[in-house]
């Protein structure tokens, strides 16, 4: 419970009630973990926070998109139209929900709820204010990528159950796109993990070497086993430790990740499943009212998830330049209030909106691909590119171009001297 920001915030805001709060905290500590987890899941950085943030992100995206086209975009709803996505959602929620007679009503009703749940769960894995998300366990990177595939599956189910001709075409296209783009997405998402693996394999190799030569270890804090590299928390933490976001190490992977992410969230050059001019609205054609509201919200959430994951894997997540000395140190320096959390959140937001800017810019820049070009593009260019970056990294590690190995030997040497 040491790092829970909730109590710090309360104590900071109401110092006069510190006694009461301390007693309350004591009581809560008996049941506290459960409540605190609930708070995290529901309020911050859980459902409420990400929902508001995703609506804000949609507004930001639309605004950037409009400004790049020399327009204004939403303007008259709230300050510069900031409430526009919210108004859309409320309106859709209040609208009549039509299910046409040919459709499977129950499956159709279940699909958007499924999509919504999935996207919220996916966002739980994104680190917002510290290196780990709300849910964090070993190998969660694989789980989160798997969940994103499931999200695409709900799209396919919706198109399927709505028994609309355009829906079917959209579904088929969504499936084809899914098959094509899952592979580069996973490959490029695994590149940071490979870097982490290498970074931590250096001390392990060295330790093994020392063990075989001397029989003892000079510094006991050095990890002796390879820890889980497929964990988002470790990847963000490593970037903080090295003090370098992985976009500098693997720029090609970042590009591939963004492009396949755009295919995953069906944004313009890859919006073939809902291509407006070709197949009306694709899989969404027959969806109306509340279901459409849920789909819109969940696609916003997925957008945010994509941006957040890109930020966590390639841009260092909540860690920023200058803040890599560790949160506890910082907090000790700055007093009781967890400034580190605040700055972490700010860094996270900055990075997410930078990624959204990139995606919005790319949306304005290209014409829609044809479905065969989409699939070809994935297999011909993106997958080889993803492999290429991995190969380059392997070469870099082999020849120790970053100098991690030599640095480590140097540190060991200094330790011996002392």
């Amino acid at each position, binding site marked *: 419970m040491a790092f829970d920001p909730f109590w710090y915030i309360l104590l900071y805001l109401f110092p006069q009630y510190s006694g009461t709060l301390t007693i309350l905290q004591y009581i809560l500590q008996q049941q506290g973990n459960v409540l605190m987890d609930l708070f995290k899941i529901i309020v911050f950085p859980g459902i409420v926070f990400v929902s508001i943030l995703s609506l804000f992100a949609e507004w930001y995206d639309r605004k950037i998109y409009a400004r790049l086209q020399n327009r204004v975009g939403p303007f008259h709803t709230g300050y510069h139209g900031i409430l526009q996505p919210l108004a859309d959602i409320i309106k859709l929620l209040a609208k009549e929900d039509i299910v046409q007679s040919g459709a499977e009503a129950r499956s159709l009703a279940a699909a958007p709820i499924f999509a919504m749940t999935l996207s919220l769960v996916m966002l739980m894995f994104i680190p917002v204010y510290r290196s780990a998300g709300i849910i964090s366990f070993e190998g969660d990177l694989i789980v989160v990528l798997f969940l994103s595939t499931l999200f695409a599956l709900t799209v396919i189910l919706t198109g399927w159950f709505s028994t609309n001709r355009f829906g079917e075409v959209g579904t088929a296209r969504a499936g084809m796109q899914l098959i094509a783009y899952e592979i580069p997405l996973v490959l490029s998402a695994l590149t940071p993990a490979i870097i982490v693996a290498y970074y931590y394999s250096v001390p392990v190799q060295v330790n093994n070497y020392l063990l075989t030569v001397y029989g003892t270890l000079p510094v006991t804090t050095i990890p002796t086993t390879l820890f889980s590299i497929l964990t988002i928390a470790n990847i963000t933490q490593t970037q903080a430790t090295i003090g370098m976001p992985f976009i500098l190490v693997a720029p090609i992977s970042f590009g591939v990740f963004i492009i396949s992410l755009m295919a995953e969230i069906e944004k313009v050059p890859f919006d073939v499943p809902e291509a*407006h001019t070709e197949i009306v609205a694709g899989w969404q054609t027959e969806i109306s009212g509340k279901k459409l509201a849920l789909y819109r919200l969940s696609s916003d959430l997925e957008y945010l998830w994509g941006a957040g994951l890109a930020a966590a894997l390639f841009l260092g997540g909540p860690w920023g330049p200058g803040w890599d000395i560790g949160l506890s140190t910082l907090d000790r320096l700055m007093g009781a209030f967890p400034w580190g959390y605040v700055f972490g959140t700010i860094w996270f937001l900055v990075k997410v909106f930078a990624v959204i800017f990139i995606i919005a810019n790319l949306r304005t820049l290209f014409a829609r691909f044809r479905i065969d070009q989409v699939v070809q593009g994935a297999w011909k260019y993106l997958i080889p590119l993803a492999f290429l970056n991995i190969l380059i990294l392997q070469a870099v590690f082999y020849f120790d171009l970053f100098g991690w190995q030599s640095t480590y030997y140097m540190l060991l040497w200094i330790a011996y001297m002392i």
Partner: protein
Amino acid sequence: MAVLDKLVTWSRVKSPWVFHMNCGGCNACDIEVIAALMPRYDIERFGILLVGSPRHADVMIGTGTVTRQIAPRFKRLYEQMPEPKFVMAVGNCAISGGVFAGCYNVLEGLDKVVPVDIYIPGCPPKPEAIIDGVAKLLAKLQGG
């Protein structure tokens, strides 16, 4: 639940999505409707989006003379829109048949097919006039 009602009304006023249908006229009104969506007037400012499926729409914009062949289709599209829904008749052909009013195959106005909420005269109406009509419709929505 007065507050909730107010919230819903607010959201409806702020986010009218339109579905545009040419009932068989010349293209003049259509290009003016599209022109209203383009950078010069950009009615996305009001939260208006042009959607492709009537299921997503709140406001239906009908342009052009309503030919007898298209009238039943228009009616069915109208029925497919979820409640609450509004119809805008843009241009004189959609209001009364306009210059084609004599031709017997032309229904004299969209209101012969579906109830029309607002009429925007002009041949074609300027994009400003269309926005003015939209604003009037939204003001009416907010009021009642």
